[in-house]
């Protein structure tokens, strides 16, 4: 698939949105402005955006606790996402989901799940409805290396295989489930597991290269759209921050050299160099893009600050489509 200059710049824009949004969220957690916790996608932007941009606007996706990047990558506006993190009434989920459970149905984001692996069957079901209704939509399930060892993934891969469902299983292998190195709890190679279900399994070794991710996921999406069924794409990447913001572990489970080597390969810096080198944009244009994104994040925070908290009665809304009597 040929990408226009505009598409390439949009990739950079979305990666920057994720980076700046998460940097700001991290600060706000530390200042007590965001209650609870957040898990940032800093370092994994190429993996997220490469996958999201391979999907069409009407396509579906589901995700996990490392949640902000997915809807941002799919094109969700930043204001309601930030307001959700703070618990404001204008949040994308009206303040009822929070960081772990973002969803923006307007962009096909069917929800992030705080339970590891739990949203994989949901994306599978969205693919089933596409198949039955014949509407040509593709569904993508984001999950981590930790979720790769949940049984529901294999139930989902099997049923998708027998039904030829238009779904892409996208493993974001950031190599650690909290403090546990993936290789110590994962037998074999995750991508190789696809063979057992008779579907393609691809491993993108350089998940910091947004174009490599885009290419692999595009092939899987096109295959799904042609009615050829599901695929598994494993993308090897790295989170630069701690598992969650504010988390302080007594042990240094990640080797400093390893971490430095990955941080050196910052996906946003790498892609900026690519854009300049290929003459897609000048340094000035890319600086301007960065400034625009920063302004967007500032605006999202301003929107959040000016938004009210939800009325307490909202705690009793939207449990059912019609109230059935649950009140204070």
């Amino acid at each position, binding site marked *: 698939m040929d990408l226009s200059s505009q598409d390439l710049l949009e990739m950079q824009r979305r990666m920057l949105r994720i980076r700046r949004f998460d940097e700001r969220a991290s600060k706000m957690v530390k200042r007590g402005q965001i209650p609870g916790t957040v898990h940032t996608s800093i370092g994994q932007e190429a993996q997220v955006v490469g996958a999201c941009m391979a999907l069409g606007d009407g396509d579906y996706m*589901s995700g996990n606790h490392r949640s902000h990047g997915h809807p941002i990558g799919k094109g969700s506006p930043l204001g309601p996402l930030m307001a959700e993190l703070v618990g404001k009434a204008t949040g994308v989920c009206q303040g009822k989901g929070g960081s772990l459970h973002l*969803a923006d*149905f307007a962009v096909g984001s069917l929800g992030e*799940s705080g339970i590891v692996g739990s949203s*994989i069957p949901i994306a599978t079901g969205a693919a089933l409805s596409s198949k039955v209704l014949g509407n040509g939509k593709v569904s993508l399930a984001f999950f981590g290396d930790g979720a790769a060892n949940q049984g*529901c993934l294999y139930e989902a891969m*099997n049923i998708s295989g027998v039904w030829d469902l238009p779904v892409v299983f996208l493993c974001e292998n950031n190599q650690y489930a909290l403090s546990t190195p993936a290789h110590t709890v994962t037998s074999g190679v995750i991508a190789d597991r696809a063979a057992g279900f008779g579907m393609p399994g691809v491993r993108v070794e350089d998940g910091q290269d947004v174009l490599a991710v885009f290419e692999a996921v595009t092939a899987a999406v096109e295959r799904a759209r042609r009615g050829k069924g599901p695929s598994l794409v494993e993308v090897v990447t790295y989170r630069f921050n701690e598992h969650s913001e504010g988390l302080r572990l007594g042990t240094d489970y990640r080797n400093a050299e390893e971490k430095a080597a990955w941080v050196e390969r910052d996906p946003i810096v790498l892609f900026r160099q690519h854009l300049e080198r290929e003459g897609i944009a000048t340094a000035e244009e890319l600086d301007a893009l960065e400034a625009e994104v920063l302004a967007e994040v500032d605006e999202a925070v301003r929107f959040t600050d000016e938004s009210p908290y939800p009325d307490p009665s909202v705690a009793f809304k939207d449990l059912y489509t019609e109230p059935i009597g649950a009140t204070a």
Partner: protein
Amino acid sequence: MTIMSYLGAIGAAQREAMEADERVVIIGEDVEANVYGTTGAGKSRKDKGDFLEMFGANRIRNTPISEEVIVGAAIGAAMTGLRPIVDLSYSSFLYMAMDQFVNQAAKNRYMFGGQASIPVVFRSAMFYGLNTGAHHSDRPYPMFMNVPGLKIIVPSNPYDAKGLLRTAVDSDDPVLTFEACMLWGSKGEVPEEEYKIPFGQANVARAGDDVTVVAISSAVPEALAAAETLAGEGVSVEVIDPRTLVPFDSEAVIRSVQRTGRLVIADPAHRTCSAAAEISAIVAEEAFESLRAPIMRVTTPDTQIPFSPALEKQLYPNRTKIEDAVRRVTGLMANTLNNELTSPAPRM
């Protein structure tokens, strides 16, 4: 009117729902072969045809034995435009998909601020009383009553089974229907024309003045039999079948208790945190002044279900236990605090 079995009524409701709306699909183990008789016009394909012939393989789908993804995929499909009916066969199998029921079906609409609606029906049958042992005999509806966001129905006769299932398919929220296998063969009058029974409306199965008996699922026919016997002893029993546990028609029960002053609840679930426990609490909170005797629960004691017929049969609410409970609350029989009718032997 026509005479239909409980199982036949479920099949008829499914057929009507499939005909009424192309977004309705049926997925589950063995649904293509119409093993239970609910996915065909009759039990035999040769005889009357089955759903696979009528609606095609796109809408009638056999699944692998993978409850977690069956339930989760049905939720995801419901969030994106289908209205699935999921046949999970045995209620005991619901536990395999607990995460999807509790964390996805029940929470997604709420958690996402109303963006999702989840029109999906999960059917399962409780095979208790049939010597299938502990892994097939569960009556787990009270566990799910503790999960806000789910609707729970417990039809006790063919008329209700058909009308409630039609409403369930129309519901934009997830509905769990718990069918009692014991009732599958029971027959009753069902209208020829289509009809739907609203949720949250109890049925007064028998009117009476002295004691209110709230009976659930297969306890309803037992309560009716008990009421007949007790009528011969001069006790007038009102039998209320709530039909749906979420939403629950507490007004109907309270109104009845305000008249009778006495309440017995017959519930095939385990005693602790049973539906009966919740109904007792509602009445104690809201109609305490009307009560002329302590509330009595006739439930399955807190033990697992044994295989041997010699062991199993005694455990569930039956007409004799319900009769004795009524005799106690009316003073015809001495009441005892430890309630040995329904309590298990002391735990060792």
